[in-house]
């Protein structure tokens, strides 16, 4: 029983860590899609931010400088997406895919040119990373059964960016449902003409949403390379941007359900890592490949049939053209 408890705590701990970048990226997607801009480029923005953060952290030896760089590059990419889709009314999917492809190649090319380590950035020292924050009393209560484990492992002991990710959820909820910006954001994704005729600029609103999107993606990418890992590795996002997109849809474009979906994906990932090589009753050892594919299979299944009626913001994906 005790072993099981330890396993459970460590699985939940891993869930929270794995889900953090998903949560950030899903919220990023939420801002974009609520404003009516489909963002397939979450993946690319995260990857670019991961690279920029790792490279900058290494050079400046400062995690904060890395965070700033990660956010900046991600916001710039979000604005490029906006320029293509909002100002020039281009196809949003094509623009997003283009960003993903561009970033996948550019990060490796620049990595080789600058660091000559086969596209990776050099390993970061602890100063250049976001390290775990130990909460007061965590050491003291560590040995108290149950509560001690929960507090020390699950609540305490994560790095700053994890806490930012989970604080971003209520913050986003508050912004979307309780502020003027949120009301307009929701409106512009449903019926931009209504926003336009109310005397509000559709273009400005959508750009603002894209900045929010880029900002959050930047944190997510920075987390991957300077908090979860100690450096940038080629294609290190590995589809997390798409998983986050799926989680956002699964969460019906709402912050809290989207977070829940991210946690579910994170949990599956954590479980998958822990049952590798373990012999299960009845079925025996499950092949590693199958376990690793599990979150993706689940994504397909959930999106195909189990999310009920997911109604996207009505104007999502449609450039706004004044019709008169």
């Amino acid at each position, binding site marked *: 029983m005790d072993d099981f408890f330890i396993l459970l705590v460590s699985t939940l701990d891993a869930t929270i860590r794995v889900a953090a970048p998903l949560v950030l990226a899903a919220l990023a997607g939420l801002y974009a899609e609520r404003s009516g801009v489909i963002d397939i480029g979450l993946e690319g923005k995260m990857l670019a931010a991961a690279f920029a953060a790792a490279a900058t952290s290494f050079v400046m030896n400062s995690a904060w400088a890395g965070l700033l760089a990660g956010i900046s590059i991600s916001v710039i990419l979000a604005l490029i997406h906006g320029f293509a889709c909002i100002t020039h009314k281009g196809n949003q999917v094509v623009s997003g895919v283009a960003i993903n492809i561009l970033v996948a190649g550019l990060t490796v090319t620049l990595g080789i040119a600058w660091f000559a380590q086969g596209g990776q950035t050099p390993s970061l020292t602890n100063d250049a990373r976001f390290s775990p924050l130990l909460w007061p009393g965590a050491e003291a209560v560590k040995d108290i059964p149950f509560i001690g484990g929960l507090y020390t492992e699950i609540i305490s002991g994560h790095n700053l960016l994890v806490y930012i990710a989970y604080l971003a959820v209520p913050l986003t909820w508050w912004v979307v449902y309780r*502020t*003027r910006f*949120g*009301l307009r954001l929701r409106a512009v994704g449903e019926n931009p*003409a*209504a926003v336009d*005729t*109310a005397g509000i600029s559709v273009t400005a609103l959508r750009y603002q949403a894209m900045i929010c999107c880029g900002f959050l993606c930047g944190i997510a990418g920075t987390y991957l390379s300077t908090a979860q890992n100690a450096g940038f590795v080629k294609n290190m996002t590995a589809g997390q941007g798409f998983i986050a997109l799926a989680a956002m849809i699964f969460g019906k474009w709402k912050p809290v359900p989207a977070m829940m979906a991210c946690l579910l994906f994170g949990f599956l990932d954590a479980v998958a890592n822990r049952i590798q090589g373990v012999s299960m009753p009845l079925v025996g050892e499950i092949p590693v490949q199958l376990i690793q594919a599990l979150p993706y299979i689940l994504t397909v299944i959930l999106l195909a049939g189990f999310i009920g009626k997911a109604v996207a913001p009505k104007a999502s994906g449609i450039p706004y053209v004044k019709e*008169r």
Partner: protein
Amino acid sequence: MIAIELRGINKSFGPVHANKDVALNIDKGTIHGIIGENGAGKSTLMSILYGFYEADSGDVLINGEVTRIRSSHEAIAAGIGMVHQHFMLVDPFSVVENVMLGAEGGALLDKGIDKTREELERLKREYGLEVPVDSLAGDLPVGLQQRVEILKALYRGAQILILDEPTGVLTPQETDQLFRILKALKDQGVTVILITHKLQEIMAVTDGVSVMRGGEMVAHRKTSETSKEELAELMVGRKVLLKVDKEAAQPQEAALKVEGLSVIGADGVARLDNVSLSVRRGEIVGVAGVSGNGQSELLAALSGIVAPSKGKIALNGTTITREKPLDASEFRDLGVAHVPEDRHRMGLVTAFTADESAILGYHRDEAYNGAILMKRNAIVEDCAQKMADFDVRPPNPKLKSANFSGGNQQKIVLAREMAQKPNVLLVGQPTRGVDIGAIEYIHKNLVAMRDAGAAVLLVSVELEEIMSLSDRILVMFEGRIVGEVDAKDANERMLGLMMANANPETDPNGKAQAAGDMQEGAEL
């Protein structure tokens, strides 16, 4: 006092001169109508007033002061409100949220919501504009949605209210209510501009009227000193026959018989519910009803686009049921021609040239096909002939369908379907978005088809059209036929009540019942 004055407004889009030297004066606290055909420049002019476009030259004076309106924002600030033809509502928002959008009164919503509620309460008291403020806008019936639009404008302090084709989607009763509201607004000093193509409404509610044609203001009249006939003539530029000229029908045997027909949607809701009707050769049967009450499904079922879920359709000795459905081309082979309600979606392919659009559905006909290739010349000649017969302008078979005006597109579709000399002609909204001159022409042709012995089923949301063309009138409500009247005995109020199903009993005593309801209605 003059609320709005326009001086020498010009606006061009490339080579198109949409507004030429337009001048207009509208007195404060009046209802002013603006009429004109499609493309006459009404919408451009109103867009200039509401800040969608800026005029190339000319001045807009609001309450005597020259005002520049470069955006909707500035229009709102100048006290101008607009109720658009297609409502500008966010469906999943509550009424309160819709009203406050763009005028939230602070970065946080809490206070704004309370303030908006109070303000809506005040507007309700002052103008009798009652709406359920916490309902989602998308759940409201169109009449109430429109009221929300009016509230949005008043909430922003509009002293000048522009309504663009406001009655297109309303029942006659809702229209009456709207007009009562407009009169109440007028009494409170609000200036109302009503853009419409319905002459009857101009006569009913306005104080003054201006007529536009070809981008110019061609006339200003006091409503009390003009007539429908004069206005129609001013709009079109020639004498127009408003009444359809037709002999009494000579109905023969039934060409189309429908018994207990139901169509059930994917969500399990009956779109058509146990409909029985028959259409005889040599008569026009009109189907009236507020848009969305099963008329579209009726046309779809009768033309083979959807299969019946229950009941049967008898055509020329063939019976179509759920077990033995036919597709649309087999219906055509049985002599059913269909002029669809939405000509852009179903009537023609806008990216095709006119001659291609003019053979759609009959493109396998021998006349158009050789052994392997289509006979391009025959198709072009055929189209040229149809264009000559139906006065399609410009008569160019190689012009893209999209480049014809709505009326001429409709003529192409009609020409195609009528050229088959069908036994049964199904016609949906034949004059939606069509100019008055073309309407006259289309109506004349429908009557000619009838006289040639076709059974014509006409679906329209325009009551005037239904009443003037039909020999018999059916009224649909929620997928059922709730009444049948002889056209001679029909009037607008009675049909309107049936359309809203204010008439609790269905036929056979429809006439008496409707007459009873009429008196109740009159007291409302």
